[in-house]
């Protein structure tokens, strides 16, 4: 019987070395494997976070390296939390977040429910529906800017066709009333397919025998929907809401392309404002405090939400 290569390597290993290796506990070996990841995590995530927290208590400006940095305590936080403009931006963000999620869940779930039926061309239609989410947000932003253009844009002509309101009499991106809805529409157009795909995965995970059992019990389609489909898809739906919520809380590129935060500050979402403070005004200390406030907000909301999600899963 020949020796295996591992046995040969073990036999060839000098005694002092093999003794050392034998001396490593499982925990130590686990640490050796995990250490590089932990090091990267500390270097890329944790250290910048701690550094940002530190900067948030100073008046540091990254473009004034020769200026003395002063410790200002909670002044940055106080200024942010008492600034009416920032609360307006938070309202704009909340409006965007709420309506995009509501519309994307409603439309995404409906589309998934329809697509889940077996019919000819199902795959082709699914592919066409998911196309928008494959595009770059910058491209989508530019593309919709043209669609919304009052003189040549398709949207205004469609509105004129159905309502009789002259196409060039209103501007979707230039009106204080319409602009917040204009960005909601574009985000919904782009990301509803994502919600649809998650819902579709949920719908397809429901075993057929549950519906068959319900049929035998003479449950109506409506009752099957509310007592089988909705509860079983709910965890997926909540996951989609979590993903979209976090993404849209930090929405930047699409809205910058569409409105740049305007008209006025109507669509100035928190992330756009933060970028301006940090990299256009270069108020690094102030913007660090702003970033921490946003981080705590999104982290807190996400934590509460994840707990709720786990409860739903346990049911």
């Amino acid at each position: 019987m020949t020796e295996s290569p591992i046995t040969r390597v073990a036999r060839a290993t000098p005694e002092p070395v093999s003794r050392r290796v034998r001396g490593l506990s499982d925990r130590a070996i686990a640490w050796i494997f995990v250490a590089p990841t932990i090091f990267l995590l500390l270097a890329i995530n944790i250290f910048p976070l701690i550094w940002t927290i530190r900067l948030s208590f100073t008046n540091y400006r990254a473009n004034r390296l020769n200026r003395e940095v002063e410790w200002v305590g909670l002044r940055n936080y106080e200024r942010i939390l008492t600034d009416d403009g920032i609360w307006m931006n938070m309202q704009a963000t909340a409006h965007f977040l709420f309506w995009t999620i509501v519309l994307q869940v409603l439309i995404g779930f409906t589309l998934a429910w329809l697509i889940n039926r077996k019919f000819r061309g199902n795959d082709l239609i699914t592919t066409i529906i998911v196309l928008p989410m494959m595009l770059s947000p910058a491209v989508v932003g530019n593309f919709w800017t043209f669609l919304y253009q009052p003189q040549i844009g398709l949207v205004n002509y469609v509105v004129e066709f159905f309502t009789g309101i002259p196409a060039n009499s209103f501007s979707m991106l230039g009106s204080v009333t319409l602009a917040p809805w204009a960005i909601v529409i574009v985000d919904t157009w782009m990301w509803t397919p994502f919600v649809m795909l998650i819902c579709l995965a949920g719908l397809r995970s429901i075993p057929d025998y549950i519906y068959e059992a319900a049929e035998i019990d003479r449950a109506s389609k409506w009752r099957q929907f509310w007592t089988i489909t909705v509860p079983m898809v709910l965890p997926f739906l909540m996951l989609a809401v979590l993903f979209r919520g976090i993404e849209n809380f930090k929405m930047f590129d699409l809205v910058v392309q569409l409105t740049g935060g305007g008209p006025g500050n109507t669509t100035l979402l928190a992330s756009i404002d933060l970028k301006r403070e940090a990299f256009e005004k270069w108020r690094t200390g102030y913007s660090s405090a702003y970033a921490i406030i946003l981080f705590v907000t999104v982290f807190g909301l996400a934590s509460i939400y994840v707990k709720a999600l786990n409860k739903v899963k346990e049911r």
Partner: protein
Amino acid sequence: MTMKRLLAASAVTAVAGLAASASQAQDLTLCWAAWDPANALVELSKDFEAQSGITMNFEFVPWPNFADRMLNELNSGGQLCDLLIGDSQWIGGGAENGHYIKLNDFFDANAISMDDFAPATVYAYSTWPKGTPNYYALPAMGDANGWFYRKDWFARPEIQEAFKAEYGRDLAEPKTQRELMEIAKFFQGREIDGQTVYGASIFTERGSEGITMGATGALYAWGFKYENTPGSYDMEGAVNSPAAVEALEFYKELYQCCTPPGYDNAYMEQSLDAFKSGQVAMAMNWFAFFPGLYADPNTGGDKIDFFVNPGQNVEASTLGGQGISVVSYSDNVDGALEYIKWFAQPDVQAKWWSMGGYSCHRSVLEDPDFVNSAPFAGDFLEAMAGVQDFWQEPAYAELLLAMQERLHNYIVADQGTAQEALDGLIADWTETFEDEGKL
């Protein structure tokens, strides 16, 4: 043998690498905005390449991203640019933060005199602190915000007649801001050659500097001042004076009454597009674009003419233009200085003007033939005589963004009053100057 070959190959590679880096050190990169004059500068710089043997590279960034991109580059100590043609407002930050090299000794050593350049341009583009003989740039590109209009429409008898019937005077280039609005109102919604046209295209852009550059055209004409006493940062009563309020209300009315639909975020490109597509009778834009507009086959030539920003209480225009600076982080400072020395020569400046650049050299501007050298040359001289600039403080970006926000909120988003907008602006600027330790 194999080892010898390996060593030889390594040596050749090392020598080639060193040679390449030596040759790269001879290259110069000039950074500027991507627009018509930049293309002219590329052509002009070929003479420098031929004379010096230095290869010129260019980094041109579209205007809406220019400040963002270049200020980030400077703030990070980047070595992308050896030479930077930066906006006039950057001079304070460039000097105080050590981004630009002070050029006084170099000018003295090479007999380059600032007296050879138009005083307004030296003051605006080169000096920091303002008005002191501390030079951080050579005036490179004079510019101001001006106007152009459809001369062929203005000349039509039926239009002349209709205008006279409505306003009791001949339709001609406006002499005041109020006249400008009357003309804009007259053209707004009018049918010309079967197409609906609009009064004027003005700057309303929110993201960078657009609406500020446009609205200051009206503010300066009404006599707007940033401070009661220059250098005092005493803004109450100056920034929000009754004249300033009136000017801002005027600009808002001009936006509401007389611009094409959807021009709520318009700057240079949109203004040019509106004019070239035959949508507007008048448009504002920087003089830098005027050579290109005049050469346009569809709306240039006989169809276009130009006028300086009309006054109201005073004659004044918004300053544009830039100086050329040597970036202190450059690894080829000597080459960059050599370029500036070459660029400052009177014959190069004359060629610069002939190719579409706006020279600031007095030998060019004071040439008796200058006024007739282009249809907009006289207007340019007139504009440069009354230019006013935005704050040039190191905190310029913060000051500008505050004004952008206040003006866009009032003019485009129709929120609050002009008085509230200007009062709010003082509050924002006061906060900035307090942070800066200047108040």
